[in-house]
């Protein structure tokens, strides 16, 4: 599903974000990405959805060679990857329904199918009855649920989540986690960067720790492993 071979990423100022990473993430895995801030977690994720290109090495996602992807092809690769952020990134002037439907309009799905599928995923994230609300009228957890609905509405094979619980209180975070587990259970690969020690230690999954641009640890059913 996701395969990296000796991937390097050097930014313009000469800073090495990643220094030779090799890893394979299989279909249907749930992976926590942990490590100190600035260790390269974000770069790792950006490489997956082709926000960045590797300076050296090879990445393949869903069989696409990300480093050599023609710009014209990028949108089609992204349709198979759902992205979730700490700050939700919803469009404030659109309702919950419209925010989710937007992702389908953009890939030019037929109107009838947009309606059906959007209500379906809103049901899945538990917001069917709030579909007409603007983001400003929803709680943080609800906003993140809308963002998750948007990420999965086009049935991606992979979900990339960058600290999805970073802005949420513990109780709400557990809600989001069980939603992600449910999505993973239905067959979607999930890569989630997090600083949440409790979640990692209680919901045991594969843990990849990145430190200083290198993989420091890669354990099935691992622990968070940092003090803070």
């Amino acid at each position: 599903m996701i395969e990296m071979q000796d991937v390097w990423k050097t930014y313009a100022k000469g800073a090495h974000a990643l220094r030779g990473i090799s890893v394979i993430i299989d279909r249907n895995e749930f992976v926590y990405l942990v490590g100190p801030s600035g260790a390269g977690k974000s770069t790792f994720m950006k490489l997956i959805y082709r926000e960045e290109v590797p300076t050296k090495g090879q990445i393949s996602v869903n069989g696409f060679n990300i480093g050599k992807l023609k710009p014209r092809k990028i949108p089609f690769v992204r349709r198979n990857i759902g992205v979730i952020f700490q700050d939700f990134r919803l469009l404030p002037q659109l309702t919950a329904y419209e925010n989710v439907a937007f992702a389908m309009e953009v890939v030019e799905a037929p109107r009838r199918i947009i309606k059906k599928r959007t209500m379906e995923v809103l049901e899945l994230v538990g917001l069917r009855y709030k579909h007409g609300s603007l983001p400003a009228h929803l709680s943080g957890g609800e906003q993140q649920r809308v963002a998750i609905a948007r990420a999965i509405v086009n049935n991606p094979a992979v979900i990339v989540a960058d600290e999805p619980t970073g802005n949420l209180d513990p109780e709400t975070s557990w809600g989001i986690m069980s939603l992600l587990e449910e999505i993973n259970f239905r067959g979607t690969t999930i890569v989630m960067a997090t600083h949440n020690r409790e979640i990692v230690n209680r919901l045991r999954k594969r843990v990849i720790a990145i430190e200083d641009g290198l993989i420091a640890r890669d354990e099935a059913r691992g622990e968070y492993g940092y003090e803070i």
Partner: protein
Amino acid sequence: MRFSTLLRHIREGFKSLLRNGWMTFASVSSICISLFILGVFLFLALNVNSLADQIKSTVQVRAFLQLNMEQTEIDALRNRIGSIEEVSSITFVSKEEGLELLRESLGEDGQGLLEGFDEVNNPLPDAFNIEAVDPELVPEIARKIEAINTPDEQPIYSVKYGQGTVESLFKVMETVRWFGLGLVGLLALTAMFLIANTIKTTIIARRREIGIMKLVGATNTFIRWPFFIEGVLIGLIGSGITTGILIAGYAQLVKVSQFELGLMMIRLVTLQESWLIVAVLLITMGTLIGVWGSTISIRKYLKV
């Protein structure tokens, strides 16, 4: 592209037009101004052209006779002019016919002026219309006809021909054309930059939206369309308004000037003859300016 997608792009285009209110207003106005001037020059050129044609096709000499000439004198004069070798044909225009022609060319407003004139009371002289073998020879013929008059006997009241007029008309037309083109080009450039700026405002206002669109896999073409449509709409609205104003204005001008210009034997190009060419040209220009402005902005500010 799906039809519903096209509708979506058009809807988005309209939305940003409204959202950018003042910028839209500025770009639409600038298109209006430049196209208005283009339109005025266009009407002017059409008329100068038709006037030149009118005059050219009637490059003939008209010799007006003294009033109250006997039929025998007229016949003699006709033979004499007819015998000039450069003359190809000669037609007699009686004063009755002359009055009728004048009535026609003055239109409705002029009828009052001609009231009281009829066959009995007719101020016009009889005349000959003389055509030349070659338009170039017209001045020569005119000179020869004038030479018929002697100090003792002056049967010819005056001789007129339009040769010099045609030449100066073409000169005027040339000047009008270049001046107009230059001015229109400059204004079109201004309009284009204003449109580019409007689109830029939209793009900046929609950074976030564009980012999300890219993230969920929108193609670049899909992202560009609404901005392109916004530019085209600005062009269409601007040129539509201008075309409407110009055509209505010209119709009015033709109506009120018919009498005055008719007195000078000038007939303006009618609305039926001109509206289509003006409308097509202005709307095409407006749309092109819109497309141009949006393309510039999209290329420069939309890094997709």
